[in-house]
């Protein structure tokens, strides 16, 4: 009677595979593979050393087991650690040399590679499996001193900057996946905003995993010097395979005095089918260091994809009066599992942080918020406010909240609140009784639930996120 059973689940739109000549190394990992990756990229000796140290440390670690997620551990010897579309020339000089098949792929994904067709006002770095394909608007940004390029190019063109900041926020010893990433990362984006510069457009990276056996291990580093500011967006998709692919990225942000970095993600990796077959393992380490006074780092994430998500974008608030923010919507459906949240580490005086987390669970999925708010003895006047809301749709899913609060300064003020709600048949009927179809009703309710997060997203992302959530939930109510 509710008429909802008829609504079918939307297929994953981005599940196609691009047939392209790729150059891949054989699966497996040892020092030889790491030397090979480093050699292919023509890296300096110090970076190879960094990789090898990370690898040797990784061998001593075991996978973290504390998260509320259950999956078969990946076999790290079966993963391809380097896969790149074969260039027609050794390096992409201009767009005309990019394989037309790749250009078509990204057009299908809604990410045109040609600047003339690109979204106005957004510069894009495009990463396909292990390498960056192209970066748009590079020259225009270069004119004001901004460096926006692939990580490999940054190593070649700006080695001093990379060397100065790489691993300063997320040391290779940080955790199992960060160590693995530090050993085998292949590409990613590099952003440097010099002193006093407000980046004139949003910067964006689009990540695409194409190869069935390959993992993606990208590395992103964003540095904002004194008084600089930037807004950075990240999007991701992958084809539909019935095996799991591993994505283990590391993102490091550094903000100096009065700098501000806003980092937004819409994560739509393939989530596996409705029985939990296939999908991406998304094990990501993201951390920002507010090094300078009055600096600000803001994370906004809309997590809708991946079979397993393990991700805690964090802020280390070292500079006095620095500000950390985390706005998150995590949606799980079918058999997806997410354990995501943030860490706000207050080191400096009068530092402030805000956490707004909205978890939506449907189907047979499991959705966990895990967050740490830590106030060190010297962080006098620190403030945190956290709000963690869960919405459950149906009786077979679950929602979990694990906030850790550690306070060692008496002048700190930390507040945490959490609630749960549901979309039930009563609520839907009310909308339907007023003539609003079930799809629109769900979308409105979800939007209302998430609006504190959506309003933090850049406009075009907010629209996309709204659509994405509604699509993901179709057929799950009723």
């Amino acid at each position, binding site marked *: *009677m509710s*008429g909802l059973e008829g609504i079918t689940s939307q297929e994953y739109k981005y599940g196609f595979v691009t047939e392209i000549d790729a150059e891949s190394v054989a699966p497996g990992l040892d020092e030889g593979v790491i030397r090979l990756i480093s050699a292919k990229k023509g890296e300096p000796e110090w970076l190879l050393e960094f990789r090898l140290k990370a690898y040797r440390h990784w061998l001593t670690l075991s996978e973290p087991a504390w998260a509320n997620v259950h999956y078969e551990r990946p076999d790290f010897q079966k993963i391809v650690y380097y896969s790149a579309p074969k260039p027609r020339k050794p390096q992409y000089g201009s767009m005309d040399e990019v394989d037309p098949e790749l250009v078509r792929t990204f057009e299908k994904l809604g990410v045109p590679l040609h600047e003339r067709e690109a979204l106005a006002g957004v510069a894009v770095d495009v990463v396909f499996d292990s390498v960056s394909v192209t970066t748009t608007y590079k020259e225009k940004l270069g004119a004001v001193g901004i460096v926006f390029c692939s990580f490999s190019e940054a190593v070649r063109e700006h080695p001093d900057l990379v060397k100065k900041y790489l691993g300063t926020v997320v040391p290779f010893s940080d955790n199992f996946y960060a160590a693995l990433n530090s050993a085998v990362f292949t590409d990613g984006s590099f952003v440097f905003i010099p002193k006093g510069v407000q980046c004139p457009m949003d910067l964006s990276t689009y990540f695409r995993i194409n190869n069935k056996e390959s993992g993606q291990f990208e590395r992103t580093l964003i540095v904002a010097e004194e008084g600089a500011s930037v807004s950075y967006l990240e999007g991701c998709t992958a084809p539909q395979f019935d095996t799991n692919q591993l994505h283990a990225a590391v993102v490091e942000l550094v903000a100096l005095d009065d700098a501000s970095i806003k980092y937004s993600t819409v994560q739509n990796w393939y989530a596996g089918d409705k029985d939990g077959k296939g999908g991406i393992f998304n094990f990501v380490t993201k951390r920002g260091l507010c090094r300078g006074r009055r600096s600000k780092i803001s994370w906004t994430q809309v997590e809708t994809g991946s079979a397993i998500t393990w991700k805690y974008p964090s802020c280390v608030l070292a500079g006095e009066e620095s500000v950390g923010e985390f706005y998150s919507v995590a949606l799980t459906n079918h058999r997806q599992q997410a354990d995501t949240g943030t860490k706000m580490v207050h080191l400096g005086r009068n530092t402030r942080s805000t956490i707004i987390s909205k978890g939506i669970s449907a189907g047979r999925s499991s959705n966990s918020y895990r967050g740490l708010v830590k106030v060190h003895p010297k962080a006098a006047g620190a403030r945190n406010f956290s709000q963690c809301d869960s919405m459950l749709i149906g009786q077979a899913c679950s929602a979990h909240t694990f906030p850790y609060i550690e306070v060692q300064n008496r002048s700190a003020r930390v507040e945490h609140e959490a609630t749960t709600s549901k979309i039930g048949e009563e*609520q839907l*009927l*009310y909308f*339907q009784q007023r*003539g*609003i179809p079930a799809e629109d009703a769900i979308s*409105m*309710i979800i939007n209302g639930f998430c609006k504190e997060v959506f309003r933090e997203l850049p406009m075009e992302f907010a629209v996309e996120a709204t659509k994405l959530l509604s699509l993901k939930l179709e057929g799950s109510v009723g």
Partner: protein
Amino acid sequence: MLSIRHLTARIGETEVLRGIDLEIRAGEVHAIMGPNGSGKSTLGKVLVGHPAYEVTGGEVLFQGANLFELEPDARARAGLFMGFQHPIEVPGVSNTAFLRLAYNKKAEAEGRDELDPLEWEDFIREKIRLVEMDAAFLDRSLNEGFSGGEKKRNEILQMAVLEPRLAILDELDSGLDIDALRILGEAVNRLMNPDRALILITHFPRILEMIQPDFVHVLNGGRIIKQGGKELAHELEARGYDWVKDESLAGRA
């Protein structure tokens, strides 16, 4: 406008409607009365398609079409409206956004132009005057934190916006003080015209002073056990429900 024939329905294993027959023509006001648990709210919920109830027999024609072939939202767009006894709260969705969407969906279905945000402002300001509602309620989340009376006011505002052919008002008077009842009663009267019809579901005859019914039906045990004109309501006010029940039992025996 609405023909109900031998309608039976159940919730879980319990029969809650046990053969209802009712004919409602344009321009008429019907009151459905009865003691608690008699099935009167159920009848309204079944008509608008509440998923908890299963229709087990009979048929309902609304403007000539089989009502049960329509989804709840399609029924609403076809002109069926229910003012709920306990309207639900929806945090985070603004009242005005909800109303505008509902209005535009109906306009779209009827091939009329949708209202843009500016036109909507004018339109809704006009409507809230009808129910004497404070405009501040428009920007609040839908029904969230509204008092019982404010929720009812909001229900009638929605009725005014959607202008249904047939409105079912479930216990409109519960939670209302005497002034609010007068305001909403007048609003409902002004929304009536010869093309529209109204069903009032109520436990107490008080509201029938405000909105005069043409017909009164008394429900008990999922059946209509007595029918009459508005004088029946007066009699119920004076004598309660027991005598009707007794009469009906005697009639069956």
